[in-house]
């Protein structure tokens, strides 16, 4: 019997080629999953009550697409308000001024403590509380008197409700990000003569972004779907548009499928966006990503390299 050949002519041992361990569990799991998936697909395809032709008919219906647009608008504007408000509240929360930090705490406490649906209904009915708005000198003469009922449309009520609520959640996310940055970073920035605002903007927040981005992506995806609550206050976003159609033709399930389809499409797009954002703010963190970026940077800084030598 001869022992297996270990080295080739060069003296370097050959790469190991071994028989892999058998994993019967995997085959069994795969079989079970396949059977379940096949059964699901079969029922979806063969059950005539799905009426896929109806789904296809309404998928690109102009009312659906208009609703989709409103949903996207609501998501973008509400998240923009939420993020801006969140950063502001987070900075206020860590302020050395006790009044400012408590005001921020109170805001977060209130808006996280009440359901967003209640807040939406509240803003929708705000005219009952303040029928007239007076803009002008505080306690002095008012300059304009907009009518609240015409000022706060259903859409604006939804933006207010969703955005202000989101601000409270974003504040905690941003604060968590700021806490995650090592204190030595602040020491270093301040020892170089940076003010607190410069330190926050140039040093702390960019590093906090790595921690802030993933939960913010999560919040955006969540917001996309939470906008469906605005249907309750008659905003014709994606869900309400579908509801209006099936209220007439009774094709309830089919139109819910249409709405779900578009929600999933939008969520998938957000996944991709989040991936790229994470990669951008992760620069300098993992060696692999670094190598890629430094190649690019070297191309940019090469003229100085010669000057430095």
């Amino acid at each position: 019997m001869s022992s297996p050949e270990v080295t080739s002519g060069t003296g370097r041992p050959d790469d190991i080629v071994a028989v892999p361990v058998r994993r019967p569990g995997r085959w069994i799991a795969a079989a079970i999953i396949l059977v379940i998936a096949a059964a699901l697909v079969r029922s979806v395809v063969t059950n005539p009550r799905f009426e896929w032709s109806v789904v296809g008919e309404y998928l690109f219906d102009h009312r659906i697409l208009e609703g989709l647009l409103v949903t996207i608008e609501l998501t973008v504007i509400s998240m923009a308000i939420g993020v801006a408000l969140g950063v502001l509240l987070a900075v206020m929360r860590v302020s050395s001024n006790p009044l400012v930090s408590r005001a921020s705490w109170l805001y977060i406490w209130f808006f996280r403590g009440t359901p967003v649906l209640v807040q939406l209904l509240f803003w929708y009915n705000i005219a009952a509380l303040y029928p007239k708005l007076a803009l002008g000198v505080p306690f002095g003469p008012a300059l304009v008197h907009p009518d609240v009922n015409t000022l706060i449309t259903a859409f604006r009520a939804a933006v207010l409700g969703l955005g202000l609520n989101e601000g409270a959640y974003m504040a905690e996310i941003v604060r968590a990000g700021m806490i995650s940055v090592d204190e030595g970073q602040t020491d270093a920035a301040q020892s170089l003569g940076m003010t607190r605002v410069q330190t926050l903007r140039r040093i702390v927040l960019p590093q906090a972004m790595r921690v802030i981005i993933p939960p913010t992506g999560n919040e955006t995806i969540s917001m996309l779907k939470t906008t469906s609550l605005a249907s309750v206050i008659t905003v014709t976003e994606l869900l309400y548009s579908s509801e209006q159609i099936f209220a007439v033709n009774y094709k309830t399930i089919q139109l819910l499928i249409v709405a779900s389809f578009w929600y999933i499409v939008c969520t998938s797009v957000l996944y991709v966006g989040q991936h790229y954002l994470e990669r951008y703010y992760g620069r300098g963190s993992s060696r692999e990503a670094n190598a890629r970026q430094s190649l690019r940077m070297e191309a940019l800084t090469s003229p100085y390299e010669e000057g430095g030598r």
Partner: protein
Amino acid sequence: MSTPMVNAQGVHKRFGRQEVLQGITLAVQPGEVMCLLGPSGSGKSTFLRCINHLEKINAGRLFVDGELVGYRQVGEKLHELRESEVARKRAHIGMVFQHFNLFPHMTALENVACAPIRVKKVAREQARAHACELLGRVGLADKLAAYPAQLSGGQQQRVAIARALAMEPKLMLFDEPTSALDPELVGEVLQVMKQLASDGMTMIVVTHEMGFAREVADEVVFMDGGIVVECGKPAAVLANPQHERTRAFLSKVL
């Protein structure tokens, strides 16, 4: 004698009830290198942080280049300085930290050029050119585009020194600059610091590197329990300590 670069008179610092500095009195002349020695917890690092007002002192007086640190004296009263005034004064004092504290989201070049651009409002191109020159001086001309995570500890600390030098400080504070380094990387950082000392920079160095203290320091100060136990020329203090506490410490580290 000219105005001392750093002049501490009975500096006290408390953290809660714990008195970390219990009356530090010392002076560092321009161009001088002072090494602060002592066991951990003796208040060396805290004293260093007081000098650029990262910590507020509770009693005593602390002057840098003849000016009170953190306060303005009007008659008998002390007025706290505004944040922008404190920042402006800090800009003239370089600090190097034990854990480097480089900005991880910036390349070596950006780390060095950042403060001149943001704080001194130097033109971007000029700041970057100066940063290149400084990185060349600490032997890192080929690492301009590297992120801190791609550099060894010794290289990171040299970038940190270049970053502090970019602000053209009149005083450099080193807080255990080699304590977090692998032994074989300590030398390259000390080499840069020696060069800096021979160029005439005023330096205060908290260190456990006795060889460096003996060779480079003009004066060594031994601290323990928040007070200066003894100070003097390195040859005298290190070779022939007068106090029991100093002797005990040195016998352990030498």
